[in-house]
């Protein structure tokens, strides 16, 4: 079992209709094993009372659900307008040429992370990071350096 039955029951019970538990249960499965496995899809389908094929279809719609376990260190670089204007594409290209990319760490692109004041912004595993420099990003991917500090807040104070 990927999901814990008691926790599953608790999540299902939160909603007026149990099919609403599909996304939260998929998230829970991904937190547990790093990705959404076929077994997890079956468990989610059974718990939420929808066909497994439909859960599977839902998984392919949302970009954050993974069907394979990712490397331990994973940087998702925003490539939307503000970040692209700040050089996101070139940054991604250079990071992808680093040795170990794909095996030890992953460099992916994402669309706008709602951190445009920190262009180039990124998600390092689950933490928002930015502005990203080549050196800073490379250091993150090497050993996770620099993420211990909490998320920087940009010019929010006004």
């Amino acid at each position, binding site marked *: 079992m990927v999901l814990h039955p008691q926790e599953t029951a608790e999540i299902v019970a*939160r909603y*007026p*209709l149990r*099919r*609403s*538990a*599909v*996304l939260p249960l*998929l*998230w829970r499965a991904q937190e547990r094993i790093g990705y959404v496995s076929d077994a997890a899809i079956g468990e989610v389908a059974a718990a*939420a009372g*929808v066909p497994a094929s*439909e859960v599977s*279809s*839902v998984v392919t*719609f*949302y*970009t*954050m*659900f993974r069907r394979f376990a990712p490397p331990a260190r994973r940087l998702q670089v925003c*490539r*939307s*307008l*503000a970040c*692209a*204007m*700040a*050089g*996101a*594409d*070139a*940054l991604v290209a*250079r990071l992808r040429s680093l040795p170990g990319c794909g095996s030890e760490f992953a460099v992916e692109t*994402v*669309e*706008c*992370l*709602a*951190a*445009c*004041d*920190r*262009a*180039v912004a990124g*998600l390092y595993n*689950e*933490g*928002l990071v930015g*502005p*990203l*420099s*080549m050196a*800073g990003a490379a250091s993150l991917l090497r050993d996770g350096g620099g993420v211990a500090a909490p*998320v920087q*807040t*940009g*010019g*929010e*104070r*006004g």
Partner: protein
Amino acid sequence: MIMRLLTDGIGEADLADIGVYRARGGYRAAEKAVKTMTPAEVSAEVVAANLRGRGGAGFPAGRKWSFLPNDGRARYLCVNGDESEPGSYSNRMLIEKSPHLLVEGVICSCYAFGCNFAVIYLRGEFYEGARILEKALAEAAAAGLVGEHILGSEYSLKVLVHRGAGAYICGEESALLESIEGKRGHPRVRPPFPAVAGLYGMPTVVNNVETICNVPGIVNNGGAWFAGIGSPKSPGTKVCSVSGHVRRPGNYELVMGTPLRELIEEHAGGIRDGHQLKMILPAGASSAAMTPDKLDTLLDFDAMAAAGSMLGSAGMIVCDETTCAVQVALIGERFYAHESCGKCTPCREGTKWVEKVLVRLEAGEGRIQDVDLLKSLVGQIGGGKCLCPLGDFAVTYLGSALRLFEDEFIAHAQGHTCSRIPEVVSA
């Protein structure tokens, strides 16, 4: 003019702590509403405030609530925190920095229209926001502010955080409802509108995070007070996100009706050194570009529309003269092609096609016919031809750029290429 109704205390105090929030007067509105006002009285204040939806459409929240049919069915509130429009990042700040304001807004709003179940939908990428909001909800529950018999009253309210998982389209209200129902985020056919048949087919209100955050202030100070702030037809404040080629990118809460020039030149510090403004995309990547001659436009729903663009969620992307209008179009279209849900033909097929043409054009491999082709595709995708607004969003900037900067498109079609965007140099 800066006026901090929603952002008050952000950056100064840890408002995510319920003790701090309460010490600064937090949850007074919830107490006032639940203990001393009838639901109809709260609704009346929100109607009087003329609080217009901050998600972009600007539809008055009080009127939206009044559309709920009085047929005894359960009603739901879904708070749209799917903030995904490139350029917008004010909701994330409110969620992370002042989560209790949002929770209090949810309590006041739900009480006003008789709702006992609210879902705050956060985009999946807001890991931090979800943790902070979950903690805030737990604190509020422990303090008897949400859950059964709020503040000892007969009123009960359940509030859930529901996370998306990577889909811009879920910011569209009917796609958001589908996503809460555990489905692919495909927009629904409308009518019926959510007020009549929303979540699980029940009457549902969908309001943006910032809209809901305005409700406690209205309850505390009255609708008339709110209606007196800023532009008469767009009262209140708007948290504007500024990014791009400005000295001080950030969120700035301004009184509605503040000139765009003040935001860009004063608060955001003006264009970076040695450069001049070329254009602003005032409501993110989906808005028509505004050229420097429009800088004196007032920031409110009507004035921005009159100036040929929109206030939207006020995610201002500022571009200086080094920016290539074709490149911006390509980056934007790449986004929309990636985020099209695929349900309807023009958006699914059209955004991909436009992206492919722009890739060629940007690389100097276009043909002169491509400019007319792009204009034609803007018409084939835009103008309300798609099932949901994403189709229009996908070609709004492009359409404006083809008008304002046609020469750049022609130059690219004739083989010109712009210098590549420089690599990141910031620390």
